[in-house]
């Protein structure tokens, strides 16, 4: 008896989840996007347009569709493929992307792999190609591993751009760069210089060492350090927290024990900086912290006094990245830009942007310099993202 009951329950549970999965789309075909804090099922809803919308309602859909000639589907639909699910930073980018698409009345598809791996992204790219999507905006988990898949997609006439973390030059039309690598390098070095007071030991706590942007920034910082202005600074170690919270914590504590007279830790990663901040604050260590972090996550640790571990840090606005990426996708699909250097386009209220040569030989648009979060402005920002 118990058995039958058990099986019944489980079967029911499974059916329910399956329905939830598909119902998510079918149900909300009308409302593309959905509000920012809708449940995860709204990745389902978000794209619902693309199977709900028959050519008939495609007409009044959006100008995107009107001249979406090379788009293989009935009407243009735009995909955003982030690094992984369950990460607020990615979620903010998605929100920005959706916001613009909704405004344009275009349908957008959101894909979040369950794990931050290239394999998962390749699978999803194949799925998108099969759906006859018109453009893919991707934050690569791996610079090179996606090349074959993306080339395949581009051969199908799909526009490919990437944001946040670049894929290599051959596998994209355009890279939406959150901030120029050099700028970040300089800003962070400047911060380190400022906090240390010009001399002393400092260390870098990076994210998963696989992430391309991390390494680019670190290299940039090292280059800036060549300048004799920073001669007093000694970079003792680059530790990797692998974007895992516990590992980052261990690494930080190791840094503290190994280098007693460490002055500053610079963590250019949202996870790493949180972990480091927590450790420093708990141990009320004298070591200070700066880097790139989410204001909402870091709100607790940012402050001028000694009870706070992080005097100030930087980040760009992921929502804006999402927005800009959306405009880029639209522009690429309607053919107003091809991704060649020198082209210009307007990204709604973000203003005018010019495409420039990227360090890796491809082309990019740069969102702008990183934004500083200080004890004064953190309160207002922590609720934004």
């Amino acid at each position, binding site marked *: 008896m118990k058995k039958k009951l058990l099986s019944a329950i489980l079967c029911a549970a499974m059916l329910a989840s399956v329905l939830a999965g598909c119902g998510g789309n079918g149900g909300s075909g009308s409302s593309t996007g959905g509000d920012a804090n809708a449940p995860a099922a709204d990745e389902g809803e978000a794209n619902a347009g693309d199977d709900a919308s028959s050519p008939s309602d495609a007409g009044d859909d959006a100008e995107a569709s009107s001249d979406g000639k090379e788009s293989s589907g009935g009407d243009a639909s735009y995909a955003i493929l982030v690094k992984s*699910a369950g990460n607020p930073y990615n979620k903010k980018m998605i929100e920005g992307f959706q916001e613009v698409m909704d405004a344009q009345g275009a349908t957008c598809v959101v894909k979040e792999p369950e794990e931050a791996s290239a394999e998962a992204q390749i699978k999803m790219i*194949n*799925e998108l190609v099969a759906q006859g999507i018109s453009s893919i905006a991707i934050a690569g988990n791996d610079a090179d591993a996606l090349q074959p898949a993306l080339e395949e997609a581009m051969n199908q006439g799909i526009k490919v751009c990437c944001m946040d973390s670049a894929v290599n030059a051959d596998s994209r039309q355009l890279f939406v760069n959150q901030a120029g690598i050099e700028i970040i390098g300089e800003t962070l070095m400047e911060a380190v210089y400022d906090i240390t007071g010009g001399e002393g030991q400092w260390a870098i706590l990076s994210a998963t060492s696989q992430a391309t942007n991390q390494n680019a920034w670190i290299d940039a910082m090292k280059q800036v350090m060549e300048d004799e202005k920073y001669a007093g600074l000694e970079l003792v170690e680059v530790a990797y927290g692998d974007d895992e919270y516990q590992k980052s914590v261990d690494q930080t504590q190791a840094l503290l024990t190994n280098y007693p007279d460490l002055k500053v830790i610079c963590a250019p990663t949202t996870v790493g900086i949180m972990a480091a901040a927590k450790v420093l604050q708990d141990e009320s260590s004298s070591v200070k912290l700066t880097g790139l972090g989410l204001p909402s996550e870091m709100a607790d640790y940012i402050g001028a006094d000694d009870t706070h571990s992080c005097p100030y840090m930087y980040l760009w606005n992921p929502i804006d990245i999402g927005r800009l990426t959306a405009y880029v996708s639209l522009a690429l699909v309607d053919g107003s830009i091809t991704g060649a250097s020198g082209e210009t386009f307007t990204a709604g209220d973000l203003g005018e942007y010019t495409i420039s040569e990227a360090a890796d030989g491809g082309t990019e648009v740069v969102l702008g310099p990183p934004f500083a979060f200080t004890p004064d402005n953190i309160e207002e920002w922590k609720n934004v993202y």
Partner: protein
Amino acid sequence: MATKSGRVISAEKPFRWKQALLKWEVFLVIIFIAVNIMNACISPYYMSVNGLFTATSSFLEKSFIVLPMAYVLLLGEIDISVGATVALSACMLGISFNAGMPMGAAVLICLLTGSLCGALNGLILTKFQELAPMIVTLGTQILFRGIAEILLTDQATGGFTKVAWFKNLYWGKVGPVPIMFLIFAVCAAVFGVIMHCTTFGRRMYAIGSNPLAAKYSGIHVQKIRFIIYTITGTFSAVTAIFLASGMGSARSNIASGYELEAISMAVLGGILTDGGKGNFPGAILAIFILGFLRYGLGLVNVASQLMMVIIGLLLIVVVMVPNLNLGRIFKKKETKA
């Protein structure tokens, strides 16, 4: 003989509809059809030959592990080091290729690496038979992954796409049919035949059902175990090759969690973990059931998190259902008789 009663024993297999219909494979076929129907209903893009074949490439590359994993499970054992083996072999492939070797040689080195990893498992498990495979392979899993990290640190090794034929292993097609699909079909056929039509296969079943009896029947139990673990390593390397071809590069952190996916597929195919049970076609069916289910749900962009829940429940339910229903049916029938 003295007390001979002249009793005649039939050598004809009695055919019973009940048993034929209650066969696991039948059940799987039904599920398979159901999945396809569902997918066709929820997504307009699903039912296209081209699409489906392309879809296979997104799960076939890891399915190469399922073939030997079926054998391992048939022995009533388990190997959770395959994922790490894939990573290590792929890294070796990249390293040797970028060291200027011709791709052909690199591929051989990759296969060799995989086989060695498998052989190491086999060696430890046959020399120290007291040890549970779970533990040993857990250890080697971490070890292999670690070696890969030592070799590549945090770097990628790539540029495989320069070699056309290598890229085509994953991306190439003959008509609508991906090359990888053809290769997989051949391998699957060979593995199936070995499992069901050869002395080796019969002996695997024997070991899985009762290792002691197998030993006393003069079967080289340890030899066979060793061979199978080695094969498992080799085919992990095969997966590594296709993965590398698909991604055009390799890192130390690829193929994580493949072992569990492979095990789920084999078990779903009716090759239960307690050994000596199941048929090969079942495993193949299971591969495609899971693959197409994921693909279909992916087409309508079901949240990957929700997908995890669905797959997980499917696994549990499908394995549990027979334990509950089969028994009941039999009881009814026989108590009536």
